[in-house]
């Protein structure tokens, strides 16, 4: 029944100061599409809320001269959708982000919130992992960088230290002939939670796959980088044998549970099916066909 203090600082330093000072009772607010739902259902009861959307860096979307992108952790799905270039370069990452919720939710939901919420089923996370995104975090002890796949620690938990805020995602530049894709399996057509989600990012040169990364979601306590799947694709012409090998790597990486959202057998099988489908889409985009 305690009151909640709401803060909306204009600078990152201020935000970090307030966040660190409030300790474990504080929560960062980006779009609030997870946080407010959790507060309403009584799962979290923050004493202090630090809204980060007023901080310019947190919502900025910048394309570097080398073709890399830096996106603020609190940029909304809709802002990314409307960006003239982002979706052309990272169609799979955009797909993952834009699959979150509905139009209304897209106006608020952010990739930072999706990652920091710590759900193994977060839709943007496998695509970010496939993209090789690096995140910048800042806390009372300054800035540091982490690979995106190193952020989640388990359901609802991350490896950020107390007082640290996720600032931005950096998506590297890639050679021409590169693209990505994200697919998820849900029983319905929308407004549902992924039973399995897969992001694939790859580069194709003269018909041969020269680089590939695969991110896999909803089949283990955290979203995973499936290195073996990427390796199976690299050097191949994405022929059936290579695809089957990559699919097998995805199936092998699964450590799912039987629950109301799907059986173990179904999740494992689906991981393989989706690997093939997602790779096909990414390849088509990469080769412009």
């Amino acid at each position, binding site marked *: 029944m305690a009151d909640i203090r709401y803060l909306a600082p204009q600078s990152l330093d201020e935000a970090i100061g307030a966040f660190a000072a409030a300790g474990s009772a504080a929560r960062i607010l980006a779009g609030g599409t997870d946080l407010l739902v959790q507060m309403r259902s009584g799962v979290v009861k923050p004493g202090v809320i630090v809204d980060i959307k007023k901080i310019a860096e947190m919502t900025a979307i910048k394309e570097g001269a080398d073709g890399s992108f830096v996106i603020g952790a609190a940029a909304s799905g809709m802002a990314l959708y409307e960006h003239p270039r982002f979706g052309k370069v990272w169609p799979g990452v955009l797909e993952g982000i834009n699959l979150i919720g509905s139009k209304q939710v897209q106006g608020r939901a952010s990739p930072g919130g999706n990652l920091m919420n710590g759900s193994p089923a977060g839709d943007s996370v496998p695509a970010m992992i496939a993209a090789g995104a690096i995140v910048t975090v800042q806390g009372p002890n300054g800035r540091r960088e982490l690979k995106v796949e190193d952020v989640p620690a388990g359901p609802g938990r991350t490896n950020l230290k107390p007082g640290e805020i996720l600032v931005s995602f950096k998506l590297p530049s890639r050679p021409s002939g590169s693209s990505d894709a994200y697919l998820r399996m849900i*029983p319905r057509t929308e407004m549902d939670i992924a039973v399995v989600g897969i992001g694939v990012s790859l580069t194709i040169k003269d018909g041969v796959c020269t680089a590939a990364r695969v991110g896999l979601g909803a089949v283990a306590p955290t979203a995973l980088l499936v290195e073996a799947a990427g390796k199976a694709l690299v050097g191949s012409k994405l022929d059936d044998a290579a695809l089957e090998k990559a699919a097998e790597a995805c199936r092998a990486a699964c450590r799912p549970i039987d629950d109301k959202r799907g*059986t173990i057998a179904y999740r494992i099988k689906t991981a393989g099916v989706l690997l093939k489908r997602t790779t096909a889409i990414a390849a088509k985009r990469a080769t412009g066909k």
Partner: protein
Amino acid sequence: MNLVTNNKWIGQRTIRPDGMDKVTGRAQFAADTTMPGMIWGKVLRSPHPHARIRSIDTSKAEKLPGVKAVVTSKDIVDFPIDKGAVMLGIQDMRWMCRNVMARDKALFPGHPVAAVAATTEAIAAEACKLIEVDYEVLPWSIEIEDAIKPDASVLHEFNKWEGKPSNIAGRLEHKKGDIAEGFKQADVVIERTFTTRPVHQGYIEPHACLISVAPDGKTTIWSSSQGQFMVRAMTSMLTGIPQSDIRAIPAEIGGGFGGKTIVYLEPVATMLAKKSGRPVKMVMTREEVMRATGPTSGSRSTVKIGAKKDGTIVAAHGTFYLQAGAFPGSPIRGAAGCSFTPYDIPNLLSEGFDVCSNRSKVAAYRAPGAPIGAYAVECVMDEVAEALKMDPLDFRLKNAAKEGTKAAHGPTFPRIGYIETVEAAKNSPHYAAPLGKGPAGTLRGRGVASGFWFNAGGESSAQVNITEDGNVVVTTGHPDIGGSRAGIANICAELLGIDYKRVSVIIGDTQTIGFSNLTGGSRVLFASAMVVTQSAEKVIQTLRERAAKIWNIDPEAVKWDQGAAHPVSPNAGQFEPLTLKELAEKAPAMGGPIGAGVQLNTAGADGGFGTHVCDVEIDTDLGIARVIRYTAVQDVGRAIHPGYVEGQLQGGVAQGIGWALNEEYIYNKDGKVDNPGFLDYRMPVCSDLPMIDCIMVEVPNPKHPQGVKGVGEVPLVPVMAAVASAIYNALGIRFYSLPMSPPKISAALDANVKQAAE
């Protein structure tokens, strides 16, 4: 029969009277009402599926600052179990008093055990946690097969089956001929067992109410329900306040589908309001709705059908076990009574068993029981047709019930429209169209199924008043959940010969309009059109008398036409017509206000039949079935407002597709619902469904002034079987359990591949 021909308004898609309010967010639903001094009520619910309540200590909660009242079963009127049934409609008050507040035992997780009213919702919730309940936890069962085991833990010891305490609370049978003899004549006999899961009505608006009890006992209830009179009567019986002191005001309703035909909160909030002296508001969370309000039954059915080579069905036997939940009263009547009714079967035995188990008390859901039974019967019909190498619609036509057929549940049918629905389905563009091929990795299939629902009449009251400026206000007593206001406006405009916009239709509260039974059983337009028609006819009679008085001629010499009184012929006299407006203006001088009310226990409701055609496309790698085309054909009697009738058909189909493919209650190992929200309780969203085509067959009901038949429930009845048969047609695999969710379809496809390999 007095069928209006050349209609101007009946059959028109007029703008719905509630439309503007709903699309602009102005409509007042139950949770939208507030009062000065209002406080909040919250319910403490049992965490256990089955437990004896040894004691409840509320003292700590009562001491919490902000708490104004605490209620337990001591505050609710007891209807002792051993004193016999006290029925209100289909509800036994012995069960209702225990369902709104557990007495000696908690019977499902979510069962209310106490309630608190406090100055804020948060304090009320906090106080609930301070209530100490001493439970003796008991063994429990939820699934039918567990509940009917001889050693199952019994919910109600007094309930005996074959001489012993049991969870089987009742049996019903419909019988015709001799099935043993009948099956002997059969060339093909198919018997299958089916299971279905509990599914929730899924109304968007949670249960909510605001209740004020004045110091003199006068009680006002604002709540959303399918019957303000039901709310008044049940609240009265459970609180001891006489009905004359309770004014139940119906809010706009955000969906009910049968689930709002009983009360949960109103008696509790009334007692909290009475004890605290403050108006009390209660609003359920979605989780409370999912845990503690009635989903329909889970079921286990066995159906056996025998037919001769020429396609004649000679015998059928159906056994339907339905979960009642915590208290007796599952809808076995619908399952056993409706499922075989589309067919003329000489030897038939249809049995229903009512099974109590430790889940929330079942509540009505759109044609209660009938979709469960039809799923089993129609799937077997499909298999028999296949075995006979007959088109499934031809097989149905061969055995179709028609005028003169005696239904096993009693009636000998008058002129009915079942055959017309099958023929319309057969002749539909959908049935004629090739299935076509989907993208690589998909398979398509088509299925058909039929269904029946009783429909109902019963008590209705109406008042038709002419305003001083010559317009019309109609008041009826039924919450409008399916378009009854629009239908009534069309009928009134037609009868009075005036523009539809001049008729305003409102729903009265319990103290301003006469008793009107629940909105349920697809009865409302049938019944209220009767009382409104008779009221309007009385008004027209008055108008003719007024004109006759003004013209100084005989009332018989005046006719009412196009909204005005005219002399019947030039012989009667040469007068300018007197319009409704003119007669209303002259009313004070000519005899006073113009209006009439009629109250009836209506009879003559005819049952409804539907036949559906469904196409599915299945992603064979992932096991996802999508409905890609759907046509619902139904005998609708007379479509007073075709847009609303189609809305009913489409809504029923949408719910059935959800039931068929994804919806289900999932219980965890502790007997608690594991998916009490719309994220994991997967009702279809818009993009899951194709545009659902409707074909309305009109075989008017001769016993109704406009030919109306109920239309709201039939459209859910055939759906699951149509979807199941379509999936079979696509995959060659029959599923005998619902839902046919992706993991289940995928596992069956894998098993097939494995089998083929062996």
